[in-house]
């Protein structure tokens, strides 16, 4: 079994989830089945809970931080891209937060919606299901096509498969 980071009190991680060796989970954090938290990602639940739902991925160096009154809720089959910053927000089922994107407190990313790479979603913006949001500050651009939605479902499935392969590795650490 691959090396896992130490999980402090208050953190609940499903045994089928993959945690990269240098992921940091602090405070009230829940990581669901088949979810994955990649290298250098930080889930900071010391001020308000951070929940990562079943089959969701939080990719390398992403940050999810709960703020007082604003927990981070990542639903099922969500993809949070490399270096994304989620502050006290909600991301609904099957949505994708692109790499380097930022989502500010109280914002809600609707089911299956896509936040473009580098976008900054303003505090409190409620994005309806199936929408593309982009820009800084981010605005609603257009409804996503069926093809885009299929690609997003595949992104979540691909990461679950990758996480299974990481969990199955056996090796002696080399430093």
């Amino acid at each position, binding site marked *: 079994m691959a090396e896992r980071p130490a999980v402090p009190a208050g953190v609940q991680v499903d045994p089928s989830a993959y945690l*990269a060796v*240098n992921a940091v989970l602090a405070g009230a954090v829940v990581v669901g089945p088949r979810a994955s938290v*990649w290298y*250098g990602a930080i889930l900071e639940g010391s001020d308000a809970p951070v929940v990562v739902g079943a089959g969701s991925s939080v990719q390398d160096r992403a940050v999810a931080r709960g703020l007082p009154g604003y927990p981070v809720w990542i639903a099922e089959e969500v993809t949070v891209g*490399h270096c994304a910053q989620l502050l006290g927000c909600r991301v609904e089922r099957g949505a994708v937060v692109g790499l380097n994107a930022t989502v500010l407190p109280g914002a809600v990313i609707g089911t299956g919606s896509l936040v473009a790479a580098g976008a900054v979603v303003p505090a409190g913006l409620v994005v309806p299901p199936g929408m593309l949001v982009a820009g*800084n500050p981010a605005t609603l651009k257009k409804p996503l096509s069926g093809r885009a939605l299929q690609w997003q479902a595949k992104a979540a499935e691909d990461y679950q498969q*990758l996480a299974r392969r990481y969990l199955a590795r056996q090796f002696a650490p080399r430093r």
Partner: protein
Amino acid sequence: MIQEPFDGHWPVVAADAQVAATAVLVGQVHVGPRARIGHGVVLRADIQRILIGEDAWVQENVVMHTADDADTVVGPAAVIEAGAVLEGCTIGRGARIGARAAVLNYAAVGDGARVVAGAVVAERQQVPPGATAAGAPARLLDATPAGPDG
């Protein structure tokens, strides 16, 4: 440096490359001679390869991954500034990718080109050699005539 294998492949790092203690290298990563890899960098080559050319400089907290079917290639003497993110793309010799910029799958940044801080080079976008790209999505800036100093 934290190294991990994937599918039996370990990273390969040139003896005279400098890799910071907190950098993470996974799978088919090749780091060329005299390249520098900063603290907090993640080079995750689990699907395709990540190739870092000689004398390249990959600064703090940069993250690189690949496309499903394309390597990530950083050319010789290229500079990838702090917090930038590269997916399966090609960065030319001596090119400079600004801080917190992103270059997405199948994009190419030509030799000596510059991507300014915070820009997002879109999937399949081509930045020609010597050009400057800015914004999200990135647009090419008009070429500035060379002054007397070139």
